[in-house]
């Protein structure tokens, strides 16, 4: 069997499965948009930021949040495959497990690209005006894409680790939570001192700062490089971990 065909075939499969799971797609799409509206209209008036209008500050944060929701679905889809027997069929057909997981990650990235565009469109409608030129957009999209890919692989690892699809969804809690103690929604210097050390040095903060800097055409400092290092570092750990988890699972 030609191993390379398996990749597009299984990516197509995962995308088809995503499209048919409308509830999950809507959740991944509607929830971040709702949260953005909540932040902008309910909380935004009380939050002081350096970027003027709060929507300008928070929109990149919502993009990050959205990526978390989209990626957490990967955990569930991977866990489904592991628990419902289809993985045995794939293995007995000599299909590489990497192709199965990659298919889910590819679908997650595609799903997130759509969700991100929707969030951006709504943000634009309520007053978000990015200042970035083509280079800034390109760089921002690149970092966001890399971040989404990283989270999706983390989601896949959670899916391999969890015994049930429900538990798998729960394992991705950290992904959904990490944007809160970052500079995604409020500036870190408004948080208590003891939290600064964590918030300044966790992976979400450089990602969000790069997005904000690049989209608003402000100096982003070394954030893009830090973001890149975090994502590539996490990927370098997650990929072999996925391999090990898979082998442990099929024991």
């Amino acid at each position, binding site marked *: *069997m*030609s191993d390379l*065909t*398996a990749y597009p*075939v*299984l990516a*197509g*499969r995962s995308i*088809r*499965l995503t499209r*048919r*799971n409308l509830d999950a797609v809507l959740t991944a799409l509607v929830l971040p948009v709702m949260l953005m509206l909540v932040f902008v209209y309910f909380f935004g008036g009380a939050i002081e930021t350096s970027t003027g209008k709060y929507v300008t500050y928070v929109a990149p944060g919502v993009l990050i949040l959205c990526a978390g929701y989209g990626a957490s679905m990967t955990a569930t889809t991977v866990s489904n495959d592991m628990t*419902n*027997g*289809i993985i*045995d*069929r*794939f*293995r*007995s*057909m*000599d*299909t590489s497990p990497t192709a199965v997981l990659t298919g889910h990650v590819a679908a997650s990235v595609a799903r997130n690209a759509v969700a991100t565009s929707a969030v951006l469109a709504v943000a634009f409608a309520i007053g978000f005006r990015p200042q970035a030129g083509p280079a800034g957009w390109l760089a921002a999209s690149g970092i966001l894409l890399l971040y989404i890919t990283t989270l999706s692989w983390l989601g896949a690892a959670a899916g391999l680790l969890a015994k049930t699809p429900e538990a798998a969804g729960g394992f991705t809690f950290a992904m959904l939570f990490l944007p809160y103690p970052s500079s995604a929604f409020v500036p870190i210097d408004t948080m208590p001192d003891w939290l600064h050390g964590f918030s300044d040095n966790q992976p979400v903060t450089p990602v969000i700062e790069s997005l904000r800097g690049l989209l608003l055409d402000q100096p982003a400092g070394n954030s893009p490089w830090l973001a890149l290092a975090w994502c590539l570092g996490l990927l370098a750990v997650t990929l072999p971990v996925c391999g090990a988890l898979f082998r442990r699972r*099929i*024991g």
Partner: protein
Amino acid sequence: MHRAPEAEWAIRTRGLSKAYGSVQVLAGLDLQVRRGSVFALLGPNGAGKTTTVRILATLTRADAGQATVAGHDVLTARSQVRRAISLTGQYAALDEEQTGLENLRMMARLRGLPRAASRDRAQELLERFALTDAGHRRVSTYSGGMRRRLDIAAGLVSDPEVVFLDEPTTGLDPRSRRTMWETVGSLTQAGVTVFLTTQYLEEADQLADRVAVLDGGRVRAQGTPEELKKTVTAQRLDLTMAGRAAYTQLAGRLGGRVLHQSPEELVLGVATDGSAAHVRALLDELDPTREQVARFAVHNATLDDVFLELTHE
């Protein structure tokens, strides 16, 4: 057992053992399955049937022993084995949210068929398994029987030499079970070797050329269904006694002649050749007053008897 050249065997195992933790699931399993035959591995729940299938289908490694499938070693030539087999497990391994057609096309593509050929193959299999009308519906709308048929069809996209069916009819209604039996029968006409597991003796009796009774991780008996049936008393006269006292009294009188007893139902079984004369003589001998035996039945040995006898302890 007949000696046959290596090429005649679709499956051979020697001394297969597997333990999960402290539980010894297989304890030295020896099996030979002839090419083009239907082989049934029969056993109660937990006998090691699924583990055996998983080892032969290269999904699980045995702790000890050897196995070849379609002439390839399951450990050292895993890819070759996988190319020669198909596996249908106990749980339909299909995408619920894809249609029957999409599932089959995907499997065909994964087996390396080009796009157009995959579509044709999928259509052809839907037709063969009477699923053409359902082909464009999602699998989640299928009945249990349709799912199993699609599941088997999915295994046939690449013309396997050996088809593993792990409890193919568990959970199916009687009609779907019949259809499944016909499906299995049609597989062998194409020269495919079928290795199935079942806990239903009737199924093994109906389908299999040879049966191995598995219990406690070992083969307790092996042979054709007929051969296995001969190992137990061919016919039995079961007497339902009129009361507890009559039961106890007759049981005492018969002693070692009792082949079968069920105190709850007040039934005692003794050997007979099944002829009217012998049954009449037995009744006269055991119930001279014609008051103690309420009913009787002549019982033909079934694989159930073999099964119960072999897996007794």
